């Protein structure tokens, strides 16, 4: 039969249904007993009428033609008279003392209607029901066979091998400004009053050369020379210091080098009235007056070498006057333009006009990260490209594999003018705090979990590559087909399709009835009606609607928020499971829906569903949930019966995981097999280098297995897709669309499997038909 469910019919059905679907199914089953057992046809004659109806006055035994009853009764009476033990009916016949031909049937007829009733009640086996009727006979045995019921359910799951992404690692760059000052100040040798040396630090007048000699000697020695003095300091005519084995010194006048060597001779020769004096370096005249080149007046004489101030008596640069020296004992000096003479520590010197440059020295803890940024992609500090007003930079090279990207740069010590060595220094920012997101070459994997061992590998593919080094895969995904539920079980089915009853007279009665397989279908369609009526979206008027449910796999840690519980933990959250552990739990709500997992999707559904389960005020946790004070997870956890410690662990750790509630809900929905997987996509990237940080897996999830089956297969019938991972189409059907669906063509076995009792053999379905109160739970 082709079954089409008209929406209105569904709504009516849902409106009339007040019990749980199983109870309704049971009622339907019992109501059908009349049909199933109503006609036991006599195979030995043309008897075709319903025996119970045709038995006038109830005096004919079940299935016996009243028109021949007396004939059969006479035969039976005769048989009993001749041999009282020949037939079981004889005992009753004789006891009744009814000698009428039909007496046996009158007698039996008083009993048989009760048996008919029992038969109609389905209290099998029938021979037991008829044992005391006086018409006992022999039944042909029903055949029994062992069949496999249920099925295995597989889910495609993923794991990832990836290099660890480390997000937003902080670092700082702090600026130190160093002043590098060069003094223009030089001590001036005033030939009118004597020799003043700077660098060499010598001064003297004629005949007082000891200091000068010492300077030269010390300098040559500082340069590694062995020195020897020659000449006479007192005569003043000439003297010299000869160095050997060391480096050369340079003799300068007015900054001009006049010779380099290790032999220094000074001569001072009176020539007539004048004085001729000069210096020879390495026996060559290098500076002289009167005969030598160069002017001595206003000359600045600087004796320098490759070492500074070898004589410890020379004063080093001071903090106040860096870069220049003065000579102890100097009394009068004249200074060049821009410099002025001052007496410092009792000594004369020239100061002023320091030529300082500022050198920035960054204390940079970001350097390691910055070196891993591909060339061209590191903006100036404080600049944060956003792809809009501040465009993203463009790489000019691939960079390393373990590349980084600077994600933020903030000035944490704003610009100001600071006093450094009495020097005002102004900068726009004195410290930046930056963050870098990097790919570390640190392999991580969630593919080594033991549970994958029981899954079938479907394949491995690269899901993220280095955009600048395309052959470098940074994340691989391996897909598995995993069995998530196995409802298969061996059941012994009794097939009485060919069963006959042969009474003691030899009459054969067709009592055959085949195993009934329609129960699950009955429940499925009733449940479809209930859900259509109970869960219609009031805004869109959609039926069998799903919800866009997503979860995230973060590649920057070990947390996979898409991980399922693996133990069908989602099934703990079905309405029936919750009701079962609640004192107020009643089966008034649909027990095939999972309202608890859809709190954030459709809170009204949950409120309505739970209210019907618990009643108002029966659970303070429920009240908290309805008031929005209790998260769904904790609410459900609170309802799980079990050791306090397990629940406490769940309570504590739920706050430590970095998974969002919606991720957890999605995982639970998947656990309950309520979802259709739509694949995944990279949902979070480092903006410039493009490294994927997070993958989102999308699903359309439904609040029942039946809704999932109808939605997915209905869309297939209507040529509608489920959408993509980025844009799922989880919507339901309009009334018009629903009318087009062919439910009979749908495979609702997953739902039906949920309906069928499990582990009950051989007469599992009988509980539906016989009104038993001890039917096993089916959830």
């Amino acid at each position, binding site marked *: 039969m082709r079954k089409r469910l008209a929406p209105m019919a569904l709504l009516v059905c849902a409106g009339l249904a007040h019990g749980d679907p199983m109870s309704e199914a049971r009622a339907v089953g019992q109501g059908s007993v009349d049909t199933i057992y109503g006609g036991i046809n006599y195979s030995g004659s043309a008897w075709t009428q319903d025996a119970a109806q045709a038995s006038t006055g109830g005096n004919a035994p079940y299935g016996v033609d009243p028109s021949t009853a007396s004939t059969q009764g006479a035969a039976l009476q005769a048989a009993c008279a001749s041999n009282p033990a020949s037939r079981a009916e004889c005992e009753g016949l004789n006891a009744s003392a009814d000698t009428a031909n039909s007496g046996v049937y009158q007698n039996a007829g008083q009993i048989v209607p009760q048996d008919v009733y029992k038969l109609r009640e389905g209290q099998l086996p029938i021979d037991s029901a008829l044992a005391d009727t006086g018409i006992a006979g022999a039944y042909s045995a029903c055949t029994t066979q062992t069949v496999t019921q249920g099925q295995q359910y597989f889910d495609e799951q993923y794991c990832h091998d990836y290099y660890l992404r480390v997000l937003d690692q902080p670092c700082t760059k702090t600026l130190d400004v160093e002043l590098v000052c060069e003094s223009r100040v030089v001590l001036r040798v005033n030939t009118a009053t004597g020799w003043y040396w700077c660098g060499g630090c010598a001064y003297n007048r004629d005949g007082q050369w000891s200091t000068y000699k010492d300077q030269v000697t010390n300098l040559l020695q500082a340069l590694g020379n062995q020195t020897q003095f020659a000449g006479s300091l007192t005569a003043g005519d000439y003297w010299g210091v000869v160095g050997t084995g060391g480096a050369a010194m340079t003799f300068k006048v007015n900054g001009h080098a006049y010779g380099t060597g290790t032999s220094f001779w000074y001569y001072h020769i009176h020539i007539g009235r004048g004085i001729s004096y000069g210096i020879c370096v390495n026996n060559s005249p290098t500076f002289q007056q009167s005969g030598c080149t160069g002017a001595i007046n206003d000359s600045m004489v600087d004796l320098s070498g490759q070492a500074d101030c070898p004589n410890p008596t020379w004063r080093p640069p001071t903090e106040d006057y860096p870069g220049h020296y003065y000579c102890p004992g100097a009394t009068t000096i004249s200074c060049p333009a821009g410099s002025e003479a001052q007496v410092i520590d009792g000594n004369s010197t020239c100061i002023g006009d320091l030529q300082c440059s500022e050198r920035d020295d960054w204390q940079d803890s970001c350097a390691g990260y910055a070196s891993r940024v591909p060339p061209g992609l590191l903006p100036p500090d404080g600049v944060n490209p956003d792809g809009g007003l501040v465009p993203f930079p463009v790489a000019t090279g691939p960079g390393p594999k373990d590349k980084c990207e600077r994600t933020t740069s903030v000035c944490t010590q704003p610009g100001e003018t600071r006093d450094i060595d009495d020097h005002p220094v102004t900068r726009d920012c004195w410290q930046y705090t930056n963050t870098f997101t990097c790919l570390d070459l640190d392999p991580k994997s969630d593919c080594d979990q033991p549970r994958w061992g029981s899954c079938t590998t479907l394949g491995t593919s690269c899901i993220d590559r280095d955009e600048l080094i395309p052959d470098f895969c940074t994340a691989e995904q391996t897909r598995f087909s995993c069995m998530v539920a196995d409802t298969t079980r061996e059941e012994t089915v009794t097939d009485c399709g060919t069963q006959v009853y042969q009474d003691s007279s030899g009459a054969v009665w067709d009592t055959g009835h085949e195993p009934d397989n329609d129960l699950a279908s009955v429940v499925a369609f009733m449940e479809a009606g209930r859900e259509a009526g109970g869960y219609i979206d009031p805004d869109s008027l959609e039926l069998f609607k799903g919800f866009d449910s997503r979860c995230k796999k973060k590649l920057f840690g070990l947390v996979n928020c898409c991980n399922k519980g693996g133990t069908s933990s989602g099934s703990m959250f079905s309405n029936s499971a919750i009701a079962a552990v609640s004192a107020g739990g009643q089966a008034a709500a649909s027990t095939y829906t999972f309202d608890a997992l859809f709190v954030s999707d459709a809170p009204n559904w949950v409120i309505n569903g739970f209210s019907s389960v618990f009643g108002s005020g029966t659970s303070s946790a429920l009240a908290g949930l309805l008031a929005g004070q209790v*998260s769904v997870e904790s609410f459900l956890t609170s309802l799980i019966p079990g050791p306090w410690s397990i629940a406490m662990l769940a309570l504590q750790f739920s706050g430590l995981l970095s998974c969002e509630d919606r991720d957890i809900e999605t995982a639970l929905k998947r656990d309950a097999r309520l979802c259709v997987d739509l694949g995944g996509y990279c949902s979070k990237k480092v903006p410039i280098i493009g490294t994927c940080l997070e993958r989102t897996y999308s699903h359309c999830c439904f609040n029942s297995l039946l809704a999932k089956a109808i939605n997915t297969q209905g869309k297939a019938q209507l040529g509608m897709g489920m959408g993509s991972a980025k844009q799922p189409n989880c919507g339901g059907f309009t009334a018009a669309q629903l009318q087009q669906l062919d439910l009979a063509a749908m495979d609702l076995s997953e739902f039906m499997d949920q309906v069928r009792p499990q582990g009950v053999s051989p007469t599992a379905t009988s509980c539906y038909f016989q009104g038993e109160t001890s039917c096993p739970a089916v959830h």
Partner: protein
Amino acid sequence: MSSRALIVILALLAQDAMARQTVSSLKPLLVEALRKGSAEGLLANPDAKAFSQTFGSTAPILIDVVRIGSHQEAGCGRLRVTTSQAGVVERDQKGHALPAKDQRMVYQVNFCGSGRFPIGEEGR
């Protein structure tokens, strides 16, 4: 146990609870224990309230955290977490209430001062 003794115990528990900081989750206690060596808290949030009601106890949920070791990742350490609650009523499989008793649970966990689990928790 006499009613007087019970009152004394409850009073002591209440005094202990009052001396503790109230936290809405375990995380701040873990972080504080990493920093100071130990932390004591009283878990009080809507979830904990619902939890207590489920287990039929009005006693506070007390959590003691002690740092018991270091971790190779800087800023992380190993912590021992002790949770206790008095007067807990558990139920058997049929949902029947069992006699109330004091519950105590101890476990250890690696955690970091930044408020997350160590990245190198596995394999490193």
